[in-house]
């Protein structure tokens, strides 16, 4: 593509493995914040 550079493709649809999630990832508030919620910066541990 000439005018559009895709930085990242379809990540959400592809991460839909059933409707439960494996739950092995870290709880977001345990990482550093403790007073806000930032989930998008966490890693999936099932990849």
């Amino acid at each position: 593509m000439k005018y559009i550079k895709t930085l990242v493709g379809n990540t959400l649809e592809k991460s839909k493995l059933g409707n439960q999630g494996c739950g092995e990832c870290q709880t977001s508030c345990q990482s550093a914040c403790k007073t806000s919620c930032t989930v998008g910066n966490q890693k999936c541990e099932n990849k």
Partner: protein
Amino acid sequence: MGKKRIHKFYMNNKYIVLDVNSGSVHVVDKIVYDILEYYETETLDYILSKFTSEYGKKAVIDVYEEITKLKEQGLLYAPEQNLVGLSYNKDNVVKALCLHVAHDCNLKCDYCFAAQGNFKGDRSLMSLETGKRALEFLVENSGNRRNLEVDFFGGEPLMNFQVVKDLVEYGRDLEKKYNKRFRFTITTNGVLLDEDKMDFINENMENIVMSIDGRKEINDNMRKTITGKGSYDIILPKFKAMAEKRKDKDYYIRGTFTNRNIDFSKDIMDFYENGFKSVSVEPVVTSEKEEYALREEHLNRVLEEYEKFSREYINIKKRDKDFNFFHFMIDLTQGPCIIKRTVGCGAGSEYLAITPEGDLYPCHQFVGEKEFNLGNIFEGIKNNTLRKEFKEANIFNKEECNQCWARYYCSGGCHANAYYSNSDLMKPYKLGCEMEKKRIECAISILANLGD
């Protein structure tokens, strides 16, 4: 009006388009950015009439076709996620604890949400027996999850360090017995850190969060000793030594900003100049009535500060990739799954806080609020209605989140922020939302710049 399916913004010299439902992110030319404004609502003829003089006919048609192609590939204007039947934590698995081993503190920080460590109750330390029972409670309620998390929190957890040590040892026994893996972390003000404690923490904790507010005058203005003196000179050398010891292990130096230091990027830089590489500085959580609270009138300056710092951050990252500001980190490729992004932090369901007496609360920020008591570790969860409320407070059920482009990044925001600002778990904290949206834009624009 239908929900917005794309979000576009210009920052740090990049035109960026985020596709809300697929998570795709595109860096585009200005012509694309302009045409996207009309793509969904107007015909190609209209778009040609509007942009041909500026960009030329061929370019407009080419861009139109590129957008259409991405749409067909599900990378632009992707339809809403179909999560019918989403069954979040139906077995009520608990996987993480915030263990309040000490409801006492050796600092007296003005803004403390824990009311100087005691969470509005009596000063107390968790007994080893209660701590052990808490770990057992976690294992018993963890179902098939292998990775379990325990954050030693307070008050100040180093005031009860022997219990911390004994609990780590007990946790290791439980790991073997039940085939689990404990990830221990600790959040400390650093006053009692000494060589022995540092060695123990370094060896046994997967992460240490060290609380300090950046520049000396900023820290000392809020984070005071019991006698009212500043704590900076006591804690900074200890935190430096601790960070030095960590080497490639995780740590965070974590500060809070209030309306007294809206120029908080200077505090972040102060951390960096002191050698700290993993940094978090967070907006204060308090009643609007407090003199130092962040209020609507401060918002624009805070947002500008984030954006200003993002420019500085790009420059630093180009020469020092190890530097990380917690809120500018975003993982676009290995990030959490859609389920996690939908349900959020898990407070009140997967994640619980436990008081020194063994009482259960949805998270550390609700501790001491009697109506949020969920039960205790000896008898289990008693307030199933409350647990259900927390479980259902997700981005589909919160009206404002449902419409917001950032919903899959913040996942509905912090329940405690929502409750304390609006007395309603389902109504997000507006200031927090605006700050979070800005941080996400900053984070993506940083990635776009670093990818060059």
